[in-house]
């Protein structure tokens, strides 16, 4: 490429690919930074299990069903109480 020519990105990136990385040695630094023995992983509790499995569609579906069921039971209870109070008003 001569000086008057516009530099080309393709040419530049091709040349850059052949660059050789410097030789490094981080082994000692890494070993100094990590504990010699890893502490054993604590057993996951129920909340962790639920959280880790929450991405599964089955778990999401079951959760959705629970919310729906709770809503229906709550609504049913509310209606039943309303009917009961109506009945009571007739009785007394």
């Amino acid at each position, binding site marked *: 490429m001569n000086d008057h020519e516009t530099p080309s*990105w393709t040419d*530049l*990136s091709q*040349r850059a690919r052949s*660059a050789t990385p410097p030789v*490094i040695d*981080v082994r000692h630094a890494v*070993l100094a930074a*990590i504990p010699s023995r*890893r502490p054993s992983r604590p057993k996951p509790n129920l909340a962790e299990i639920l959280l880790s499995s929450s991405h599964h569609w089955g778990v999401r579906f079951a959760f959705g069903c629970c919310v729906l069921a709770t809503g229906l039971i709550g609504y049913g209870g509310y209606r039943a109480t309303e009917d009961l109070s109506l009945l009571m008003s007739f009785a007394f």
Partner: protein
Amino acid sequence: MADPDLNLALSARAGDADAFGQLVERHQPMLAAILHRFAKSNADLEDMVQDSFIKTWNALPDWEPRQPFVHWLKRIAVRTGLEYCRKQKRSPIEYLEILPESSAPEDQDPANAALEEARVLLSKLPADDQALLTLIHLHGMSMEEAAGHFGWSRAKAKVKAFRARKSLQKTLSQLGYRYE
């Protein structure tokens, strides 16, 4: 094909630091080759390689032996490179950076000088674009490979690469380069 790192990685996962040391020794040239494309200096490169191995050690309990250890390690290294790009964006020093054309020493290796020039040009882009194009253009990775390392789908990588190239094209034309 059997994973040649399997036994060492399993020992390391069980807490054997010596086994992990052997993995570090075996794979540090590969990590240096990837992260060299991101690093501004040798000190930054050493920090990134070291950081990648420490992250790997800490994440070993989550490693699934079904996937080759080296693929997983590369993925951690690429993410470290991406974090480095993001960190550089937040640093005010970035604004002081100039193209190396006038500052590069005459005796510098031409390939390394080209890498430095290309790296500075890519650093003008947003961090994610910079990291993606570094892997594709400066490391020679395929789009699929780069997408896999970032944990992106192929479609997402394609869209990102398209936008990144557009952005690079604009930057290059402003700086008097040809994009072809």
